[in-house]
């Protein structure tokens, strides 16, 4: 039986899978049937009538049921059903579609005339003008003239804030409902809807804050007119004035592909500025979407006045501007002065090139393995190297018969696009198993949910894996049913995070989960496409940091070291007690994050940064770095996809790329001539990190044709979501893919028992921080420090909704608002504050009265 259907479109024969819509079949042979309401990622609704075409259906004899044949012995076609909407009509065997006949042309121009009869035609001041499907299709299919009296047009409000991020121009809306359907069908935030009827139909929201969704910006991309615009771009620039620059989002490990639109403008003193950020299609990563944090949270890079511009050295107690050579000579000299009492701490937002150069400077130049990430939250990079999500996977392919497990993570807040793709997999029929201490937005879509007691994450995971080992032993326990589902799934993808668990616990959890993936029920899951482990890393390039060997115990490519260096905790201790004398901090703020109280006994502190952070303020030398928007490089996503980003704007001040600063220090400590391009450092990476073998800047820039075909010449489907011409990246293969992974012998761990009220810090997408707080547009959405607990616990402590109280967490006092919800008994959730490890014991202090 063939699942393919043959049909003819404008004389061209096409063969497409059964169920394909005519509009998509036509697209596949380059025949662009005009559409407005249709969007390939949304359910078709047939609302706008722009896609009307003639369709001839083979006629059958009523009596015999046989095809009626014409004189040539071919089935006769019946075109008598009137025009059909190509966006809702599926193909059928033997049908013939005509898209250029008079009746079709007449329908197209009539629909356009109808739409334009209440359209303001303010293209000259419209953000969409120049990349507007309505404009383009009117040029292509519309009348050249109007029969309308211009002054008879209905006038409606042109500046309606749907919340402070998205503005609606009511007059421009053509009521295609793409925005409403996106919010409802795709992201399940149905907070915008139509109000009223006919020409007065308008988009409204009643949510608080308005248009309350992490996805709102996407509606401005798919809106086929300029009705929806973002607060930070509207009236900002014309599309043809801007240059696109391919980039990546730096806010979470998903690694959404993005495009910056930049221009040089008088308004900004002749500077190159980023006017907007839009998703760039990568059907393996973010498809056509991105979250609002990525879209609005970029302002720290190019337009923050707080950016450092010149190297600083402390002279007479003051940080003063100096030349690069003075700063570099000073830093290099000091770093060599203390022998092995030197250490380096790095952030995990930097590029692979930066991170590689960082470990090289320490290992090869300063002969020290004392390097680590400044803030360690999630372990298991080495485990991921063995059983990570296989190359050739796409979360989009998961569905019926497959299973996804999410452990200790709130994907909606930590990695929104993963949340979306997991939710969609569950909607396609994949079994979703959620293990966490509390409910998250994933529970709604889950088939198995286990809320374990605070501190018992490891135990719950161990039980799950043990249940899976004993086949068919479903003793009625929810966890054992989940284990059975996971063990028998065709494909198994597991996410694990760090909510409520500390670093050591995450290491154990990763190993247990690896064993589940390696279990040989049937084929074993690890190593096959669409199977494997995905760590919900705290930052966009934590994966890259592991791969590059920014770790005291692993060199590049997970080469285990015989004599490991000091880890971050030991380095902080060493700085406090004087065992470490010189410390180099890159792209991290341990003092601001509460990891380090002060300089301690350090004799030398160097900080390489974008901003004068609290740590930088204590430094002897501050080296100003370029943000990712000012240069090129690569990041590796949590799915281990190595991806390139490109320069978007000119460097700020005299700043240099992190890798370049490190290489120039390296030259001064005997590492030879510095490389002069990021691509050359990446070539070094590809040699040193075995997993990256064969990659270079050209292979990472390869693209293939993607479906749906957005951003093509027609530009119908996605408004201004951009075609990907800059690269899809490459995923490195896990060891399991070549059969080189064996199960872990996981050490038994003691079960935590908490006395008193347990406290867990939970993630919030808009948690205030150095970077996101620089985006004024998000100021009203920043998460406030909040303590959530259930009504009984609150009553017992005499707390009421909205109280402002002091909470003592691991020695720090935090003022937080009380919120009463369904948090499990005996637990308090703290959000809107920087990371707190594991499960802490909380003490509630005084209520703060003002």
């Amino acid at each position: 039986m063939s699942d393919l259907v043959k049909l003819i479109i404008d004389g061209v024969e096409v063969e497409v899978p059964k169920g394909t819509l005519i509009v998509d079949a036509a697209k596949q042979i380059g025949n662009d049937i005009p559409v407005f309401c249709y969007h390939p990622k949304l359910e078709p609704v047939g609302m706008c009538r722009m896609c009307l075409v003639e369709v001839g259906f083979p006629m059958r004899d009523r009596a015999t049921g046989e095809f009626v044949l014409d004189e040539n012995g071919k089935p006769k076609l019946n075109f008598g059903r009137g025009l059909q909407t190509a966006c809702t009509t599926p193909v059928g065997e033997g049908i013939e579609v005509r898209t250029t006949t008079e009746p079709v042309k007449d329908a197209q121009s009539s629909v356009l005339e109808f739409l334009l009869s209440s359209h303001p035609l303010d293209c000259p001041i419209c953000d969409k003008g120049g990349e507007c499907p309505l404009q383009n299709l009117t040029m292509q299919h519309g009348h050249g003239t109007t029969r309308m009296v211009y002054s008879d047009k209905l006038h409606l409000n042109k500046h309606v804030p749907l919340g402070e991020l998205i503005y609606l121009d009511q007059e421009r809306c053509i009521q295609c409902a793409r925005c409403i359907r996106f919010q409802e069908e795709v992201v399940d935030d149905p907070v915008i809807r139509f109000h009223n009827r006919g020409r007065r139909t308008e988009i409204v929201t009643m949510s608080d804050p308005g248009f309350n969704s992490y996805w709102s910006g996407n509606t401005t991309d798919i809106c086929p007119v300029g009705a929806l615009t973002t607060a930070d771009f509207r009236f900002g620039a014309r599309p043809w004035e801007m240059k696109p620059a391919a980039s990546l989002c730096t806010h979470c490990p998903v690694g959404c592909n993005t495009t910056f639109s930049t221009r040089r403008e008088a308004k900004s003193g002749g500077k190159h500025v980023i006017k907007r950020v839009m998703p760039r299609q990568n059907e393996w990563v973010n498809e056509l979407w991105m979250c609002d944090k990525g879209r609005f949270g970029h302002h720290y890079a190019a337009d923050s006045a707080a950016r450092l511009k010149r190297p600083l050295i402390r002279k007479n107690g003051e940080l003063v501007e100096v030349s690069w050579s003075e700063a570099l000579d000073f830093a290099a000299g000091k770093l060599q002065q203390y022998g092995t009492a030197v250490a380096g701490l790095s952030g995990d937002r930097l590029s692979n090139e930066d991170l590689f150069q960082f470990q090289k400077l320490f290992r090869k130049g300063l002969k020290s393995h004392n390097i680590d990430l400044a803030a360690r939250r999630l372990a298991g990079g080495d485990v991921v190297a063995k059983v990570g999500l296989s190359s050739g996977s796409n979360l989009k392919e998961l569905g019926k018969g497959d299973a996804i497990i999410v452990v200790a993570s709130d994907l909606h807040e930590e990695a929104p696009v993963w949340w979306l793709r997991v939710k969609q997999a569950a909607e396609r029929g994949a079994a979703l198993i959620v293990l966490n201490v509390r409910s998250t937005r994933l529970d709604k879509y889950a088939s198995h949910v286990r809320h374990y007691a605070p501190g018992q994450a490891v135990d719950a995971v161990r039980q799950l894996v043990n249940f899976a080992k004993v086949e068919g032993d479903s003793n009625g326990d929810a966890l054992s049913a989940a284990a059975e589902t996971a063990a028998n799934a065709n494909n198994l993808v597991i996410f694990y995070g760090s909510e409520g668990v500390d670093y050591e616990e995450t290491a154990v959890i990763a190993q247990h989960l690896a064993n589940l993936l390696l279990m040989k029920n049937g084929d074993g899951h690890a190593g096959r496409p669409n199977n494997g482990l995905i760590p919900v890393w705290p930052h966009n390039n934590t994966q890259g940091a592991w791969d590059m060997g920014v770790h005291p115990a692993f060199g590049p490519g997970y080469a285990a070291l015989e004599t490991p260096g000091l880890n971050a905790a030991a380095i902080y201790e060493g700085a406090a007690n004087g065992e470490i004398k010189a410390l180099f901090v890159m792209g991290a703020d341990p003092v601001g994050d509460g990891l380090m109280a002060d300089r301690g006994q350090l004799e030398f502190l160097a900080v390489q940064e974008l901003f004068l952070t609290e740590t930088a303020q204590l430094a002897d030398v501050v080296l100003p770095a370029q943000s990712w928007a000012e240069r090129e490089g690569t990041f590796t996503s949590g799915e281990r996809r190595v991806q390139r980003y490109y320069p978007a704007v000119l460097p700020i001040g005299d700043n240099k790329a992190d890798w370049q600063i490190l290489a120039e220090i390296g030259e001064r400590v005997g590492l030879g001539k510095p490389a002069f391009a990021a691509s050359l450092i990446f070539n070094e990476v590809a040699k040193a990190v075995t997993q990256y073998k064969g990659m270079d800047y050209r292979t990472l820039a390869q693209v293939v044709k993607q479906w749906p075909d957005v951003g093509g010449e027609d530009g119908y489907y996605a408004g201004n979501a951009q075609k990907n011409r800059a690269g899809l990246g490459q995923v490195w293969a896990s060891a399991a893919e070549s059969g080189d992974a064996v199960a872990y012998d996981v050490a038994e761990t003691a079960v935590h028992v908490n006395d008193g009220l347990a406290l867990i810090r939970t993630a919030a997408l808009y948690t205030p921080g150095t970077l996101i707080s620089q985006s004024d547009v998000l100021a009203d959405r920043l998460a406030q420090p909040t303590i959530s607990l259930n009504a009984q616990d609150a009553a017992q402590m005499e707390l009421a909704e909205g109280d402002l109280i002091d909470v003592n967490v691991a020695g720090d006092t935090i003022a937080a608002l009380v919120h009463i919800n369904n948090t499990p008994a005996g637990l308090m959730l703290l959000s809107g504050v920087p990371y707190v490890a594991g499960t802490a014991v909380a003490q509630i202090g005084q209520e703060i009265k003002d």
Partner: protein
Amino acid sequence: MIADKYAEEIEGILARFPHKKSAVLPLMHLAQREYGYMSEDAMREVAGILDLDPTHVLSLAGFYSLFHEEPTGKYVLEICNDLACALRGADEFVEMVCRKLDIPLGGTTEDGLFTVKGVMCLGACDRAPMLQYNLKFAEHLDEEKFDNLIAYLREEAASGEEPPSVVEKIAAYAKK
């Protein structure tokens, strides 16, 4: 709060539908009966009972002309001024009505008796100009017939006799 005040009635309504969400219109009628119109709070209450985003309720209130988002007079005169009626003089009729009652379209008379609304086709195009009040149709209208209608309604209001309100009627249909 209707949730507390009409707990039993609400439970009865919910029991009639396989999906909670489907009970939204009956609950909106109930809320409108209670508050006289769909205030923002009323919408939030209904949404809260059904676990919906309040925008959903607002959208329905905006779509159906029998829901009012502003306080109304005792009688809501819903005049059809859709295409067919417009061709038979509905626009002039609306103008006359507004002049007589001395209110703009959508307004309410000072005595709180009448609100005039323009609505979409009511399915009586062949008997235009026409209007609907209390779910009753008045058709083939002209100035004289309109004066009579107003006089009649004023009388009814003065007599203190309460006509069954629109929402009660609907609630009664819904119950059947």
